[in-house]
């Protein structure tokens, strides 16, 4: 197991390095410098600014300077918000996005696993078709449509829940979490249904039933563990998707999280902010993929045996 984690970590490093390099040169190759637009700046002022942001150095020196800063955990200053560093902005947005993502994932897991397992217990009956039909709707209903519709119904018509904000009013975290999580609930429902169907037809489940275990114990103690491996493996990509989805949800609900900052940075052409956020989010996603792979491998007895053999 330790060896597996070690090799996955070794593989992740060149990926992260490639991300940093590609992003850096892409952003630097963008037409127009950050101080070209808006008010006319005196040439001396512009030069001073460029010197301050190290833009006067040759490109490769800028790159190595950036790598050096990164190694110290410094993502540099923001171009558009003078006096604020990218670290500060990320630091204020990350907890909000993490909380939103966490609630959304909890919602997706609860609803998705329950619906999928429920459907798999009686395949090709109403108990199967109804939740799976709803899952199909969940997959086809993009968050930027679901969000406004939920706001329209529960916020504006029924006036049950606040329509925007984060942590200002009671209940204002509910709609964003549902909006972000519902597509994943749908995917998880489909994955856990397929996984459960496969496991429930295995010999060891027949054995468990033959020895007279009640059905709920067959399901919860024997089938779930194997049946949910695809769901666990999906959590890595799901996390990446949740972060991307948070761009939309945070925009709709005016939540001060990473996604909103990123979209704003994209509009403002705040290059260091874009660069910093991309590097940060990519690293986070690569690491999260790693963790979900490790958990999936650990849950799978066959893989685990293979790795512990390799270890000893």
């Amino acid at each position: 197991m330790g060896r597996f984690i070690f090799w996955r970590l070794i593989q992740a490093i060149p990926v992260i390095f490639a991300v940093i390099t590609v992003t850096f040169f892409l952003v630097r190759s963008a037409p127009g410098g950050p101080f070209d637009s808006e008010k006319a700046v005196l040439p001396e002022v512009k030069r001073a600014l460029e010197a301050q942001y190290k833009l006067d150095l040759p490109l490769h020196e800028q790159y190595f300077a950036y790598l050096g800063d990164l190694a110290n955990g410094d993502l540099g200053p923001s171009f558009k918000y003078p006096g604020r560093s990218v670290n500060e902005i990320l630091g204020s947005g990350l907890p909000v996005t993490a909380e939103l993502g966490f609630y959304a994932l909890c919602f997706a897991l609860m609803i998705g696993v329950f619906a999928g397992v429920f459907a798999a217990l009686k395949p090709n009956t109403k108990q199967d078709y109804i939740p799976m039909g709803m899952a199909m709707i969940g997959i086809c209903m993009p968050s930027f449509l679901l969000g406004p519709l939920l706001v329209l119904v529960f916020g504006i018509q029924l006036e049950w829940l606040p329509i925007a904000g984060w942590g200002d009013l009671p209940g204002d975290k509910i709609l964003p979490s549902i909006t972000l999580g519902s597509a994943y609930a749908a995917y998880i429902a489909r994955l856990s249904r397929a996984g459960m169907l496969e496991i429930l037809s295995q010999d060891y489940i027949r054995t468990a039933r033959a020895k007279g275990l009640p059905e709920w114990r067959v399901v919860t103690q024997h089938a779930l563990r194997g049946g949910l491996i695809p769901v666990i493996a999906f959590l890595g990509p799901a996390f990446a998707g949740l972060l991307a989805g948070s761009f939309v949800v945070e925009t709709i609900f005016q939540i001060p999280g990473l996604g909103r900052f990123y979209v704003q940075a994209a509009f403002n052409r705040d290059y260091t902010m874009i660069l910093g956020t991309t590097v940060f989010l990519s690293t986070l996603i690569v690491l999260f993929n790693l963790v979900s792979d490790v958990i999936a491998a650990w849950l799978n007895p066959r893989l685990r045996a293979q790795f512990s053999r390799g270890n000893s």
Partner: protein
Amino acid sequence: MAESTASLLLEAEDGSSLWQDAWLRLRKNKAAVIAGIVLLVMVVIVVLTPWIAPYSYEAQNLDLGASPPSSAHWLGTDIFGRDLLTQIMYGGRISLAVGFIATAVALVIGVTWGAVAGYVGGRVDSVMMRFVDILYALPFMIFIILLMVVFGRNILLLFLAIGAVEWLTMARIMRTQVQSLRQQEFVEAAVSLGLPPSAIIFKHIVPNAIGPIIVYTTLTIPSVMLLEAFLSFLGLGIQPPQTSWGLLISYGAETMEEYPWLLIFPGLALTITLFSLNFLGDGLRDALDVRGSKD
């Protein structure tokens, strides 16, 4: 008697091709058939839009402003008094075009990449698939946004960027197909005839893997369309004066409190299309017996 047996045999032979079997199975799947018809109607409408749209695309009626659905404007009008049905029809042209063209880009890259990796095998294969694994681990949404920022919001780039993202799964599927096909006699025969590898891959292997390619293409189109709508919603995709369903939804969301129809109808158009594509894809997967799973 003999004659009827002969004709039966003939019929049996006629009816036994893979494609006819698949067609029969697909026809039995009502959801897939309805989805197919809906899509066909949708495509015909957007292709004919410049001739059949009830109003011209730019026609404004500022006196009218936003009005709910009526007999003159079936789906109502937007805040500039533009006919919403016309807007949705023109938006559909862009949304569907992005869906089809970007998927075609993904198809070409993915099939070629996967076929070469699977056919050549060995070290080339492991390097090529390692590359795919690495790309899988990257947050593409962020990269597309980055590309749009760096190179400006241009529709051609949007096609390429989305296509360049969506080819990965196609490459994996294609590689698995090729690996199993290249063991078969007809490929060995082609090799022993001295055909060049490119001819073997594209004339002999790819046509035999067409089933999974079709199924996966059908399932890629909705995810591409979703990506375009997503970007347009954020204001990073299609730009006015052009429009797309994502952009219409984004405008609709801004004014939904007063004019909910401006959100609901473009949303319906997008959802129905995505729904149909997914159902058709699932139906094709069952009909062509790809992977044999039912999820």
